């Protein structure tokens, strides 16, 4: 019985907690910062897509970069196949 009383008052004490007055504001500041960075990223992406859509030179540059990457990958692959063939043969 005595133990129960002690336990109950301990439990009540553990339920008592003080929250900083500015806690909500701190969380909301972080949330707004996150939203701001999201908006910046989104507007950058939109600008990039716009640039590619309306500028033929940018469109050509992107296609050329993709093609160049593909060619480089192909060369690396052929090179590795040939070098393996030489080793095995």
């Amino acid at each position: 019985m005595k133990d129960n009383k002690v336990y109950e008052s301990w439990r009540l004490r553990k339920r008592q907690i003080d929250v900083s007055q500015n806690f909500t504001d701190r969380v909301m500041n972080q949330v707004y910062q996150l939203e701001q960075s999201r908006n910046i990223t989104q507007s950058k992406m939109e600008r990039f897509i716009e640039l590619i859509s309306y500028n033929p030179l940018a469109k050509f540059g992107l296609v050329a970069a993709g093609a160049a990457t593909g060619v480089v990958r192909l060369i690396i692959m052929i090179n590795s196949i040939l070098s393996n063939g030489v080793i095995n043969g």
Partner: protein
Amino acid sequence: MIEETGIIRAVLEGDTESFRLLVQRYQKPVIRMIANLINDRHTCEDIAQEVFLAAYKKLPSFDPARSSFSTWLFTIARNKSINAMKKMKIMPVSNPPENPDFSEPADSLVRDELFVKLDRALESLNPKHRRALVLAEFENLPYDQIAQIERVRIGTIKSRINRAKHRLRSALEGIDGDIQ
């Protein structure tokens, strides 16, 4: 009181400020849960901040058909607490505050001593048992909600709470405090 689903819908539709209502509603239980799990009063608000920020980021993935918002939020708080406990060194429990109900200083001293024993017993519990006890005894969550948070069966939760209470009871045994 505005319904939770309405607030969540408003946030998802771009009304960021509505999230403040959710923070205000849940800040106390979330901070208290973390404080009782990690023993560090100084960092529990920082962790709680991370919990709310993570909740905001993940809000589009919240499915009310699967769980209530509180269960979902407590699950995030549980995971963040586990991560924090892995990173930090476990801090000793601070001295309990004075209880204004005590009529005699001697009673207060004895009771404080018992509180320290209970705090130590709580600290020494298996983390799973401790989480179950904290959610049941300090947050008053029903067993099925705790089972959902811990992703185990209700029977397992009952067993964990019983074991935890048994350990706490053992901590109080053999003390002849003059408490009324």
